[in-house]
């Protein structure tokens, strides 16, 4: 077994291992999943993720031992099509969607995924953040067109959930290599302040305080308020903010914050949330780069799978998740990136050090896609 596939320990980086395994066709075995925990083995949300993976592929073989501490996965072909999935509410839809974004362009048939569960929670990137920052990243790589959309139909806050999103993505045979070395200056800031099952005034209070911080940099700020009512408001109350800074060269830097789920920890004031979220955006701008910190791994994956040509992307400091992703890319695709630190010049104030990532794509072509 070990001579054919890769073996890992522990449940961390669970999604990236399974996603890369599916794309590369290499089997993977994950051992010692919470083996020393009082409650060993896979959690419900991980099982739910595996089921989703099973739905979008054809012929995958998944074996889990009795205690759930060992998982063996032999990937099948990416099939796609219309998929419905009830995502476990322990994690938000963002957790599942992050993986789907990576797989969707390489399906046999274009994906139309209806995901139900928690749309917004403080742990994972929310669907609003992915919509406003991950989708533009994918567009840079030539994944575009009418059928490329992420729609929030119903909003469901943690812990109750009850939200629904529809993600549609066209298939591509090859991925365009990109040269994103200059992010350009930030021209405008957009955002969404959402609230469900609380006073609609909450969203206005968030907008007010966030603008207070950001207006000292830029006049062009518009934050929409989104108050969903009735059957579209899910099961739990809550509110939050997603803000995105757009640059002249079409890069998007995003930040977000959600209210603490009902019954978990201290409640937050909308004013504090707005202000802190604006500061998070400033932090993200300080990190800088052409792709923001939450989408680094998505961009690096698409660079790896691009045509056999040089791709360059300027990133902010690499997140721990991204560093592990780079190691996994090396394991699955034998691609190592050239990593150069770029220090901003002294007379400019453009935040911290940047990292220029360069690689030659593996020339991945989507063999699943039907020829017309």
């Amino acid at each position, binding site marked *: 077994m070990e001579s054919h596939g890769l073996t890992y*320990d*522990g*449940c*961390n*980086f*669970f*999604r990236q291992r399974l996603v890369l395994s599916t794309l590369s066709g290499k089997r993977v075995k994950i051992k*010692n*999943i*919470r083996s*020393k*925990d*009082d409650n060993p083995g896979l959690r419900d949300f991980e099982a739910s993720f595996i089921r989703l993976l099973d739905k979008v592929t054809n012929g995958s073989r998944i074996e889990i031992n009795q205690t759930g501490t060992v998982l063996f996965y032999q990937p099948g072909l990416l099939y796609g099509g219309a998929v419905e999935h009830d995502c476990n509410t322990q994690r938000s839809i963002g*957790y599942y969607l*992050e993986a789907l974004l990576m797989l969707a362009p390489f399906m046999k048939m274009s994906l139309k995924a209806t995901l139900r569960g928690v749309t917004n929670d403080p*742990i*994972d*990137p929310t669907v609003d953040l992915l919509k406003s920052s991950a989708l533009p990243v994918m567009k840079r790589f030539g994944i575009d067109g009418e059928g490329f959309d992420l729609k929030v139909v119903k909003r469901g806050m943690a812990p109750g959930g009850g939200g629904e999103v529809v993600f549609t993505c066209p298939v591509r045979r090859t991925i365009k290599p990109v040269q994103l070395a200059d992010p350009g*200056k*930030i*021209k405008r800031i957009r955002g969404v302040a959402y609230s469900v099952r609380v006073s609609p005034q909450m969203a206005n209070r968030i907008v007010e305080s966030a603008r207070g*911080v950001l207006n*000292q*940099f*830029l*006049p062009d700020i518009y934050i929409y308020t989104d108050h969903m009512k009735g059957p579209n408001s899910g099961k739990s109350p809550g509110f939050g903010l997603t803000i995105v800074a757009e640059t*002249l060269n079409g890069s998007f830097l995003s930040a977000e914050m959600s209210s603490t789920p009902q019954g978990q920890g201290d409640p937050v004031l909308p004013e504090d949330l707005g202000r802190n979220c604006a*500061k*998070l955006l*400033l*932090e993200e*701008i*300080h990190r*800088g780069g052409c792709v923001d*910190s*939450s989408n680094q*791994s998505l961009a690096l994956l698409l660079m790896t799978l691009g045509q056999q040509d040089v791709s360059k992307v300027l990133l902010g400091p*690499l*997140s*721990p*998740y*991204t*560093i592990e992703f*780079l*190691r996994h890319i*090396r394991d699955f695709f034998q691609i*190592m*990136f*050239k*990593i*150069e*630190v770029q220090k901003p010049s002294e007379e*400019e*104030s*453009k*935040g911290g050090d940047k*990292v220029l990532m360069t690689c030659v794509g593996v020339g991945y072509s989507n063999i699943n896609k039907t020829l017309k």
Partner: protein
Amino acid sequence: EDESDEEEATGRAGDSGHCSEEEEEEGEEESEDEEDESGEEKEMESEEEEEEEEQGALRWKEDLQQKASQAFLRQQEAAPNLRKLVYGTVVEADKSDEEEEELGGLFRVNRPQTSKKFTADALDCSRFKPDTSHDWDLEEMLNSIRDCFVTGKWEEGQDAA
């Protein structure tokens, strides 16, 4: 091309411990020689000045090589080779906590989550926690990103004004 060569060179040097020091010292010596020459010219001009003064002026040259190599090492520590950090030997880390305590030769103490195991079973989340040392209430921090916006300062040649 040259850059990548350079990088590989430093990468290799880094891999084999501290042998980069020697190479660097050679480089430093060269540059020191150059400075000596230019220094000598100055000396010729001011030959007639008092010796004491000359010595005082030359004192900054003492330990120049040592200072330079120290500065170089300091810089090396401050800017680690990212490629090595990312792709370097990761496996070494998990050997340390293999020793498990045994009680009476029969039972093992099952320690919940020591450092390495903790990362292996940690929460699978792509969020990148912000740097806590950055206080965005300070004017200084705010100024550090001013030029990221269209309202900031532009590079020459790009400014429309």
